């Protein structure tokens, strides 16, 4: 029952925000309260040694909890709580500066909070789903809940980004639905034993799945959830949506939503018949490599620092797909966790930079160390961490990936990672170094940006701690 | 059951259809009059008109060549010749040979070609415009017609018109019902476009800019005009007859019931055309190709259904 509550609680708060407390500071309080309650509930549910009953309805398992969903549920809830805390200061600052600069209206607080909470609820549903149909419904619902958030700053560009996001993701997810249906017909055993779309039943019946149907299903699933995850030939919506959305929303999109779509693909890899594992892995590695190449190509000479971060997400999703394709599932989870924390922190910092300089163009941002030293420090550390500089957990996962992979793959990945590093480092240095800008950013904006450093700093500490722990852990056990 | 071979009866039906063909226009006009709440012209009006016209003298423009005079006769003969290959009711045509379906289609094509040539021969700009539209639509319609022939040929495994239209060949269980419906629908559209009926051409319009068939025959008078009217009615009759044979149910009992059902279906199509003309408006010329390509798509779907299911 508490599993259903995890999904319903944020929805309840969302309704409250829409109906009762629409004005002033109330919606933001409600957002923070909702996030904290969700976090507490998730911690209670995922306590070690506690088993929650699966929720089923008319013989169909709807929600359940396994090892992977415990991990990602905790992570998502934690990230959301961080972002909610950040929103408390960011939202008023953004509104104030926006109206001062004449940017027009931003979204009303009640609607913003309601969409954020609904988004959290749908992501929890994705993570808890243990029926592939429910999983599909939930993934599509995350698109719906997050699309309005992209037009936070109402303007032609964000509208364009939202339209692309809606259309491309919906078509992609439609393909995933087709794949799911193909899988439902792949069962060759007697009709009354049919597993339907229940995950556990399918896993038990994986040997009875027809291999050609499963192959077709997996291709559609990979294209479908791959679109949502931002794997390369299908990634086109991602840079637009992530760069046009406001900082907190991009942080959630990049840090939590991509993990949810990854989970969709992971479920299908888990139920692949043994003789088809190789097929699935080859496809995953191919798409992952493609994403890596595209990301490296677009990060070099990128002119927009938020787009740079978005392409870095494409890169890391590609890496996660490659790791999954090599069969190192646990390593993929660690990689995604590291990426989520770091990327959330980076997007939040990018939001502060945007507040100060009011532009997303790299060459218009100069001398950050002079103007906003705290944010600049965080920005440098964040970029270094996301590129996999040693104390970062991403360093460990990338190292293991390169050493465990076949030579050609490892060498290619390493080269591409180096390209990405060069691109991101040069952009980052361009931004933080140099003389102070001739027209200094107004003092109010500087003050706002510098006061927004708390949560990113906390995230940096967590990531560093996680990296250190990981090194220690790897030293002590042959774990991968 | 194949068609019975009874040359005497076939010739009787053939002569009867030559006589009855102009009646179809009378029926169509009566139906339209009924829908319009009018009394309408008499059923036999076309016979009276033809009789009146045939007693007048023909007159030809001095700038025209012999094509103008030749065209009505040749196209009438071509249409009559085409009718020789249609099985009458349940009886196989005595002249049937393998491949005569193509001969049939091109005899109708020859008749149309002469009409177009004659229209251009007059040098009148309206007639030329009508000719150009007629040629444009017939190109598309011919594609549909041949797609239908392909469909029938696959069913009957023959390209002889008498075999293609044998009532047995179309009733196979299962999938063929939607396929037959598709083909019949497309063929009905072909009847409308080939005979210049309403969604494509308004036979009653008096605005030369929008006419097709009527625009082409503006320069005719007297017996030649009568011949052209008669040819048009024969063409309508023969296409309706082909569609009737396509849909004639298998379990028609004796020869008499068969023939009666055949004639009843033809009359029913005339009524159908009248209904369509009463409830529809003429399409814009730009939209006509859409409808024709759409019916081509319908026939191709039917062929696919036939081939794969």
């Amino acid at each position, binding site marked *: 029952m508490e599993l259903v509550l995890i999904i319903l609680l944020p929805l309840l708060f969302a309704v409250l925000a829409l109906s009762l407390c629409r004005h002033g500071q109330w919606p933001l309080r409600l957002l923070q309260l909702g996030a904290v309650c969700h976090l507490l509930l998730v911690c209670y549910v995922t306590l070690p040694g506690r088993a929650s009953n699966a929720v089923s309805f008319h013989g169909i398992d709807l929600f359940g909890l396994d090892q992977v969903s415990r991990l990602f549920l905790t992570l998502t809830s934690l990230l959301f709580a961080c972002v909610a805390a950040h929103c408390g200061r960011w939202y008023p600052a953004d509104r104030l500066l926006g109206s001062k600069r004449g940017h027009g209206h931003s979204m009303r607080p009640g609607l913003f909070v309601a969409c954020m909470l609904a988004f959290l609820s749908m992501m929890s549903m994705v993570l808890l789903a243990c029926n592939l149909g429910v999983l599909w419904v939930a993934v599509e619902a995350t698109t719906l809940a997050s*699309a309005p958030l992209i037009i936070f700053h109402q303007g032609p560009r964000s*509208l364009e980004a939202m339209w692309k996001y809606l259309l491309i993701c919906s078509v992609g997810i439609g393909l995933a639905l087709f794949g799911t249906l193909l899988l439902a017909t792949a069962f060759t055993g007697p009709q009354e034993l049919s597993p339907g779309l229940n995950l556990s039943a399918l896993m038990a019946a994986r040997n009875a799945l027809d291999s050609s149907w499963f192959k077709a299903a997996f291709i559609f699933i990979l294209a479908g959830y791959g679109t949502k995850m931002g794997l390369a030939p299908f990634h086109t919506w991602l840079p637009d949506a992530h760069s046009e959305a406001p900082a907190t929303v991009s942080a959630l999109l990049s840090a939590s939503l991509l993990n949810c779509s990854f989970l969709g693909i992971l479920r299908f890899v888990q139920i692949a018949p043994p003789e088809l594992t190789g097929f699935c892995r080859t496809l995953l590695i191919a798409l992952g490599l493609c994403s890596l190449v595209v990301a490296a190509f*677009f990060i070099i000479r990128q002119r927009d620092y938020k787009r740079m971060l978005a392409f870095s997400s494409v890169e890391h999703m590609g890496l996660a797909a490659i790791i999954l394709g090599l069969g190192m599932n646990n390593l993929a989870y660690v990689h995604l966790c590291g990426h989520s924390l770091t990327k959330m922190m980076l997007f939040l910092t990018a939001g502060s930079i945007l507040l100060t300089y009011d532009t997303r163009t790299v060459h218009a941002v100069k001398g950050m160390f002079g103007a906003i030293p705290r944010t600049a420090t965080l920005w440098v550390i964040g970029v270094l961490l996301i590129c996999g500089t040693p104390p970062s957990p991403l360093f460990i996962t990338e190292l293991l990936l390169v050493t465990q992979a076949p030579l050609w793959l490892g060498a290619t990945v390493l080269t591409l990672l180096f390209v990405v590093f060069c691109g991101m480092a040069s952009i980052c240095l361009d931004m933080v170094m140099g003389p102070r800008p001739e027209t200094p950013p107004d003092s109010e904006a500087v003050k706002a940006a510098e006061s927004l450093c708390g949560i990113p700093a906390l995230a940096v500490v967590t990531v560093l701690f996680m990296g250190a722990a990981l090194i220690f852990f790897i030293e002590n056990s042959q774990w991968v | 059951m194949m068609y019975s071979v009874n040359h005497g009866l076939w010739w009787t039906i053939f002569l009867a259809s030559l006589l009855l063909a102009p009646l179809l226009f009378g029926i169509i006009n009566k139906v339209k009059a009924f829908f319009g709440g009018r009394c309408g012209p008499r059923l036999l009006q076309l016979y009276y008109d033809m009789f009146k016209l045939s007693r007048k003298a023909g007159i030809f423009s001095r700038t025209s060549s012999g094509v103008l005079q030749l065209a009505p006769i040749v196209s009438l003969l071509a249409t009559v010749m085409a009718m020789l290959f249609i099985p009458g009711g349940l009886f196989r045509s005595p002249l049937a040979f393998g491949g005569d379906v193509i001969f049939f289609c091109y005899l109708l094509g020859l008749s149309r070609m002469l009409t177009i040539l004659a229209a251009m021969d007059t040098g009148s700009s309206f007639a030329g415009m009508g000719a150009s539209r007629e040629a444009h639509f017939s190109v598309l319609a011919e594609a549909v017609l041949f797609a239908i022939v392909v469909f029938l040929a696959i069913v009957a495994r023959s390209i002889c018109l008498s075999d293609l239209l044998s009532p047995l060949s179309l009733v196979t269980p299962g999938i063929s019902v*939607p396929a037959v419906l598709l083909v019949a629908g497309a063929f009905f559209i072909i009847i409308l476009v080939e005979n210049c009926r309403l969604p494509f051409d308004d036979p009653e319009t008096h605005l030369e800019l929008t006419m097709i068939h009527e625009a082409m025959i503006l320069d005719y008078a007297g017996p030649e005009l009568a011949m052209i009217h008669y040819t048009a009615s024969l063409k309508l009759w023969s296409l309706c007859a082909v569609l009737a044979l396509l849909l004639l149910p298998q379990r028609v009992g004796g020869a008499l019931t068969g023939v009666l059902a055949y004639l009843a279906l033809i009359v029913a199509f005339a009524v159908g055309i009248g209904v369509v003309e009463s409830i529809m408006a003429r399409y814009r010329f730009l939209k006509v190709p859409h409808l024709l390509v759409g019916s081509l798509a319908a026939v191709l*779907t039917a062929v696919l259904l036939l081939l794969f299911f």
Partner: protein
Amino acid sequence: MSSWPAIILVVFLLSSIVLVSSSRLVHCIQLVALQGVLLGIMPLIFWDWQSSPPHGELVFLAIVNIAIKGIALPMLLILAMRRAQVRRELEPLVGYALSQLIAMLIIAGCFAGYRHLIGGTTANSAMLAIPVAASTMLIGLFVIIARRKAITQVIGFLVFENGIAVFASGLMVHHGAIVELGILLDVFALVFIMGIAVFKISREFQHIDADRLNTLRDRRDHENTAPPAGFTAE
């Protein structure tokens, strides 16, 4: 009547072909509504009536399906169309007759490909659902690509979605009422949000040509809204 499933599927296919060739948006929306109604009754038609009457869940789902896909969604689309003040898709990227030909090629390709897949075995009419579903999906994608207006793209998406639903009901995939309702709800909410987006786009840009939504791309200086004339991407 064993031929009813085939007749319904063929009508479904024809409606997609007609939709591709129609320029009036109202007409397109009516066709989508027709497809929705056909989809609703399809599970009942495919049901084996000789053995048992259909259970209540099936009838309930059929009614909900007709209500959402046949009535609610078309009404939403018509509302969005009125708000955005567009009636026709003028100047599509691919002309109407050519679109019809491409739709025909898609259908032929799907049938031939399906024939190739199943080999020489004879197929029954329920199996007809697979090529029909595949070609409807592809035609929907084609409409999304070949039309300019944002609202036509929504219509294309609905056709695509209908294709998937044909596949599900043709093969009698049973994924439970709750999942089915969830899918319907998702599609409904999606069209609702897309309708709002169409309205906002029309207000912001004074047009709803999706192919002119192209300011976001990776090139130099795209921060400034209008690129200089003759400027090419690096």
